[in-house]
């Protein structure tokens, strides 16, 4: 039997909706398990990519320094890197803050917002620093494929994965391209 495809996944500034959509492939996940094994992923709880990962699926855009760090690790270890979903592709919902100064965002959330008690801006050294703006991932690393959608449907993800597993150049028919 041919060696299994190793797959790593991560959610950066995302909502895990794209991961949920991956799980929505339902029983097809058994067929996927025949040809692929998971490396670093919230599904395995493996914290870092192995040396050789075939496929990295990245959900979410970049809103803080840790997102950038993780993305670079993915690019370094993954042969094929895929931007999964609207946030990875164009910043998505988190990018709505790009029109508001970061200082104003923090003040609204942690100082002046309705119902805030003990107002203070979180400043623990453990917390990754926020980026001034939210960015899509292609602005930082080379991305090989894009799966649009919020989230991309299970069928879209399945079509992409099955194309790749069968050694075909992945392509999405018109019906599977949606941005919403």
């Amino acid at each position, binding site marked *: 039997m041919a060696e299994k495809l190793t797959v790593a996944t991560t959610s950066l500034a995302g909502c895990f909706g794209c991961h949920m959509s991956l799980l929505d492939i339902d029983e097809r996940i058994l067929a996927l398990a025949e040809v692929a094994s998971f490396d670093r992923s919230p599904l395995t709880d493996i914290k870092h990519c192995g040396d050789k990962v075939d496929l990295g699926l990245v959900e979410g855009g970049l809103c803080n320094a840790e997102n950038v760090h993780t993305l670079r690790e993915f690019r370094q270890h993954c042969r094929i890197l895929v931007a999964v979903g609207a946030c990875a592709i*164009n910043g998505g919902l988190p990018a709505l803050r790009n029109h508001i100064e970061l200082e104003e965002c923090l003040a609204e959330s942690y100082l002046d917002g309705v119902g805030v008690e003990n107002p203070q801006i979180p400043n623990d050294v453990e917390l990754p620093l926020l980026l001034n703006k939210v960015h899509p991932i292609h602005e930082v690393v080379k991305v090989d494929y894009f799966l649009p959608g919020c989230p991309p449907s299970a069928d879209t993800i399945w079509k992409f994965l099955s194309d790749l597993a069968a050694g075909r150049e992945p392509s999405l028919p018109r019906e599977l391209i*949606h941005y919403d």
Partner: protein
Amino acid sequence: MTKPSILIDGKPIPFTEGQTIMEAATMAGVYIPHLCHNPEFEPHGSCKLCTVKVNGRNCSACTFPAADGQEVLNDTAELNELRRTITQLLFVEGNHLCPSCEKSGNCQLQAAAYFLGMADAHYPFFYPKRELDASHPDILLDRDRCIFCALCVRASQDADGKNVFAIGGRGIDSNLIVNSPTGKLADTPIAAADKAAQVCPVGAILVKRRGFEVPIGERIYDKHTLAEESLEREEPIMESQHG
């Protein structure tokens, strides 16, 4: 005398004197992608999505007059790639966040991107800061989504006789401006039934209180390509104009 004709991708397309390449193509059921063109109004020639090769030169099909014997290339890999690039530039120059837009599924910019097989916007995003105008009781103006097609400008002037809109500024600072002392939509005579309030191909001008009348997944371009819908909508308009 036989009717003059042009060749579009090798197919003879008859036309009547005075017609543009776009008009001849539409009446013959040949789709040329476009965003700023709407046959109800004077062609604007600004979006450049309808760029075709006429005897070897790039021209806007919506403004270029058809002439007997012209050889026009339309549906070619090169032109469609150019159109996709233009569409990507439109996406990065505005704030087009489809998942949170009421127009999603009915939006011609999105449908053009689907039609051209755009999976991502490729270029770095500008995230321009644009002002929202919710002042009018019945109409929302969300400038984030404006693509400067000027259809509302033309509709307000030509169909409504009100002259409510204009495009101001240059380049990335281009801006849809409102003709009132305050610059607010509430202080103009625009009404929800006006053509200018209905004609926007994207989600920049929306009539209020109609959100999600049709659910996502059931909308125009969820079911049809822009090519199908565009020809179906525009052919009868052309027929009535040119017979």
